[in-house]
């Protein structure tokens, strides 16, 4: 695991790792140490694509010096609570995503709903999780022109990530479906359905372009 510590103001530390999995592994280790009281007091721990930000540290240089000596267990994909999100795969970009993947829309649905996702990190809006799990070859670009309004509950793809819009907002991700699941409710405890580490499965609802669940998607075939 390669690890690089960068300064963030006089009380922060940005730890950069070689991959998203390594960043998730370090984040899990930080949470374990915080729970055991083995981490100095810190205000925020913010995982992201390849980094973990620690803010509000009394001595960021001290922690930076200590980090290279840590034993960090590799990420265990099976850990964490699983959330099922029922989805109508009726998004306006489903056909385009299927075309980019080189499969039919029905097969795109099977691939997506057959994947176990994990919340790598959150951002963009309260309760918006960046979910990883799709193989690299299924990464898709953002739309060239972002939509001025993406409806609440839109299930969307961009780069290697899947996300669900917790509220209506502008957005450039490719929309493949819709869910009625409430991702964010400030009056609920916890307010965010998805937090870093949560495992997620998308369950196709009847009326989706193909509601058949199947573990094997015949990728690459065309109709």
């Amino acid at each position: 695991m390669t690890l690089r510590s960068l300064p963030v103001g006089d009380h922060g530390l940005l730890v950069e790792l070689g991959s998203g999995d390594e960043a998730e592994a370090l984040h899990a280790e930080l949470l374990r140490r915080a729970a055991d009281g083995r981490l100095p007091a810190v205000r925020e721990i913010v995982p992201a694509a390849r980094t973990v930000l620690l803010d509000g540290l009394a001595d960021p240089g001290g922690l930076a010096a200590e980090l290279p000596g840590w034993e960090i267990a590799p990420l265990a994909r099976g850990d964490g609570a699983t959330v099922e999100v029922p989805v109508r795969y009726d998004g306006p970009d489903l056909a385009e995503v299927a075309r980019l993947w080189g499969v039919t829309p029905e097969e795109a649905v099977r691939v997506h709903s057959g994947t176990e996702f994990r919340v790598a990190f959150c951002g963009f809006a309260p309760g918006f999780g960046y979910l990883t799990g799709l193989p690299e070859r299924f990464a898709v670009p953002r739309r060239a022109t972002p939509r001025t309004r993406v409806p609440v509950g839109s299930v969307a793809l961009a780069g290697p990530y899947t996300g669900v819009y917790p509220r209506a907002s502008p957005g450039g991700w490719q929309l493949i479906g819709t869910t009625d699941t409430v991702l964010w409710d400030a009056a609920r405890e916890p307010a965010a359905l998805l937090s870093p580490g949560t495992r997620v499965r998308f369950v196709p609802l009847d009326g989706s372009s193909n509601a058949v669940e199947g573990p094997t998607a015949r990728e690459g075939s065309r109709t």
Partner: protein
Amino acid sequence: MTDSAFSVERAGALTTVQDLGRTGHAHLGVPRSGALDQPAHRLANRLVGNADDAATLETTLTGCAVRPRRAATVAVTGAPCAVSVDGRPAAWGAPVRVPAGALLELGAATHGVRSYLAFDGGVAADPVLGSRATDVLSGLGPAPLADGAVLALGRAGGAPPAVDVVPHRGVPRELVLPVVLGPRDDWFTAAGLRTLATGGFRVSAASNRIGLRTEGPALERAREGELPSEGMALGAIQVPPDGRPVLFLADHPTTGGYPVVGVVPERWLAAAAQAVPGTGVRFTPLGRVFRGRTAPAASPERAGRG
């Protein structure tokens, strides 16, 4: 029955409920939010006998007018402005007694941007994740004040005021902001970093609670493209593709993909919150807090086996 509440007679350009913000939720995409000029917010609370975390009103340039439905002790701090009760001049920066039903007016800021209005008992909006702050980026917390709205006040009768009157801090003609370089200063050329240190920047009129935008020279990049999303700290100076630095304030996004050339320590951000559009901005890079680039211990490339 007398309501413990106030009505909004004139909301002003943007008046929001603010407190110390909601920390500890950045990993869920929740900005910290809270008063942009925290010393002024705390002072207003102290003047009326509130705890620091009681909610105040934060105005923007044009003040506001409210009518408390119960007698209230109030105090106005932050950007200096004319204060009046039923048309009669009242003190800025000192406790003021407002009878039930009287009109309390805060005029336009004579200098600075944001004034703070504290009521004894505090503004009693419903807290979200432990804070009553309005977050204009994510929409959390109470809506910005609107003409005719009625907001609840907390129960009065806390500790007696600890201070009677406060000196005005003054608003400098030029905003000087120390900067700790990094984490992504290596995304800029030496000339780009010189531009940061010597460039004549001005506060842009597009600034808001999310960030102080600047006008001025563009910082030359050493590399193109975007970073994979990474965590953003309060005070981060993010440089979007146009090269003009944006200083992140309380409602900033928690992650972002543009490089952060440096970070302004938190204690300087209150001054940034009071800098009106057009004010000159000078960034003064400081040394590093610790050596970045490589992990300080030996063999950083193989560090942290896992």
